[in-house]
């Protein structure tokens, strides 16, 4: 048994328990120790992130090629290094325009992938899914009652339309001088609120459940630590 490893694990468990109790003490109000714990968490997360980026990206992409083959390495990294260095000019207010080419490439490539993925991966498939809800042959193949399937499809379609109507903000001026949406959009928007409320309630309950699990895990950790300490003692 490795005493140093055990002691290290035990020490880390104590530190973890102490930090857990400090976070729990926030229920009594804000205090210095809570800020200390939060700052510690942020600092450690940032440090790990920096190390990971250096270890996973910077070193293998910029440094290692030069080490392995200087000439070919420099040729390989010339353009990426130049674009990366141009980004540093964004720190200067006067020379920030020098970093625009790099940002333009990043924004352009990112937007292209996101837009292409959204159209091909979400928009068209989801629209097709909304349409195929009323596919009787597919229902038959899936052994779904056609009536039930049509009702489900109708509810889904109605919910989709009313939810989209809620986000329609076009309005016109009435004779009384008030802004009002189109007459047939207003009731659909009102119904759409209920569907949105149901979706948001579902999401909120999920957040609540995730929080319960995190709390439960910490409580269990504390209980296990106390029980282990009692056994040792």
């Amino acid at each position, binding site marked *: 048994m490795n005493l140093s490893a055990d002691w290290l694990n035990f020490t880390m468990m104590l530190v973890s328990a102490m930090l857990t109790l400090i976070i729990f003490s926030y229920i009594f109000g804000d205090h210095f120790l809570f800020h200390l714990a939060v700052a510690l968490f942020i600092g450690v997360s940032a440090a790990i992130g920096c190390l990971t980026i250096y270890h996973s990206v910077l070193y293998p992409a910029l440094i290692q090629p030069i080490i392995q083959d200087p000439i070919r390495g420099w040729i390989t990294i010339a353009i990426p290094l130049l674009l990366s260095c141009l980004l540093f000019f964004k720190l200067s207010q006067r020379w920030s325009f020098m970093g625009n080419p790099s940002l333009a490439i990043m924004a352009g490539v990112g937007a292209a*992938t996101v837009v292409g993925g959204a159209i091909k991966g979400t928009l068209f498939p989801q629209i097709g899914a909304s349409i195929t809800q009323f596919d009787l042959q597919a229902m038959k193949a899936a052994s779904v009652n056609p009536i039930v399937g049509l009702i489900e499809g109708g509810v889904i379609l109605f919910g989709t339309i009313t939810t989209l109507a809620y986000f329609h903000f076009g309005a016109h001026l009435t004779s009384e001088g008030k802004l009002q949406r189109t007459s047939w959009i207003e009731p659909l928007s009102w119904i759409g609120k209920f569907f949105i409320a149901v979706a948001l309630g579902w999401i909120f309950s999920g957040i609540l459940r995730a929080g319960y699990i995190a709390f*439960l895990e910490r*409580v269990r950790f504390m209980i296990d630590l106390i029980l282990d300490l009692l056994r040792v003692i």
Partner: protein
Amino acid sequence: METRFCPFCGQPNQPDAQECEFCHARLIPLGEIEKGPESETSSVVPSIEQEPQPEIPEWLRDLRDLKLDETEGEIDEGIIEPVEDLPEWLKSRDDQKGSISLESSETLLSDSLKNESIIGTEAMPIESAAITSDGHTENSISSSSSNEDSLPDADFPDWLKAMPGKEWEDDSDKEEDFFGGVVPPFVDFDESLLDIGLSDSSIVPEEIAGEGVSTSTPSSTQETGEVLEKEIPGGLEDLLAKSMHLETEEKRIEVAGPLAGLSDILPVEPLIAEEKKGFDIFSNLLITEKQRQHAELFEQLIAEEGKTKPIKSAVTEGSSPGLRIFIFVIILAASIFGVLFNPLPGKPSEISVGVFDAMQALTKVSAHSPVLLIVDYEAGDFAEMQTVGFGLIDQLMVKGAYLVLLSTNPLGALQGDRLIRQINLRGNHDYEEQTDWVNLGYLPGSSAGIQQFIQSPRITLPLTSHNQNIWATKEMKNIQKIGDFALVVVMTENASQARTWIEQLNGNITPNQVVFLVSSQIEPVVEPYYASISPQIGGLVAGINGGAIYETQAGRNGMALLYWDAYGLIVSSSVFLILFGILVNTIGKFRQSSSKKAEGK
């Protein structure tokens, strides 16, 4: 205090001001100026003395001074003694008795008539008189024009003599051609205007009649006025009367404005210069009702922009530490009780379709099959994600799959490492790093990096987090693209990240090869991609509920079932607290409203 408004610019001035402070126009018309003893003289100089002005030409000032010395007590109207500095055409007027008055009156008449008509290169003052006069207007004018030869020849200036079509007497004795032979534009007039009915010289000033000029002074202005009233209508009558009136009065010198120092200036205000109002048809904008409403709306917005809106004082409630502590105690007690005693027996009995499909997807995984495990969640969600993923990963470990970890989150690589060790320990597996599982580490570039990895994983991440090349191993040597993996498992609690992976994997891998292990908070977001008739993912395990069902179906006691009882107890306590809070608030508000009603009565 009353203010006098300028008839030209409309600005207010002092009531006793003579001229406007802003445009220097006369505020008191010439007709309103009271006649003084000096006004009865016909000299030019006394009028200046009555209203001394600083900006009088020197020659005029001298002239006035001279006249003051020479014309004391002279009453004869219409006579202006010659002055040396006067121009010749003006001097020649003095020779004839009453001629100056007539000429001046004619000039006044012509000018005033000119103002009545269009002012241009051709002034037709006498034309207007011709139009408005009755009867034998043209004849009178023509007859008057024919009598031009009988006019005294010494009194007409050259410019008047040089009128086109007129035969003047020889003006050889004329010393100076004042206008150099150029006929002033205002001289031209229609001959028909001469027939205006002023042929009777006994009652009409001889200068106007133009025939048989007599030396009789137009003293009988009243008779003249009567004739004028009979024969000359309208404004012309007023102008003629005014000119007659001006003959008997002193010469008025303009003392204000740009014409200061000049005589015989017709008063513009208020007889001639009429305050004209603008055309009403141009005062209203030609806009539609809709445009007017939009304009009013903009005006309201602009007007309200500068106004400070009253901030409603929000009803601030206290922090209620007692309530927070009460809720914490309840939840803590439920969790401790659930962890220690497991009061709720049993396991989830329902079957989830998503869990079932996920289990079906694992049937294609065999021993040493490469399985890509994407770990994309934060450290704070580790507790829930390990309950969600324990069952499936444990089953993969049971099958002996070769796990390849990947993350688009810098901290995700460490989370994946911790997850595998935790499951390895809990499930009593003997998984070793580098032999049974590897960690490719952090994948940069977000969606672009994901797409690149999907297309060519070897080029994107050639080495692992420990700088080892795994692509040559027996498990990975056949991997050229992402579709070559036996299974792709995505674990995330971020909705946008889940959507990004679904969108990028779409079309590059069959849906049955993709399983999503997600947090319960993003289940509504991922559900449509799974529940459609043509799903984009093969299986879905969401939250501790899905993990517990998976573990129950797989017959393994994992993290989900470990927390299941306490979780159930906490959820029940929360429901109880929420209902209790609703009840307390409802009763409280009911009592409050009833007390207010009682006070109101």
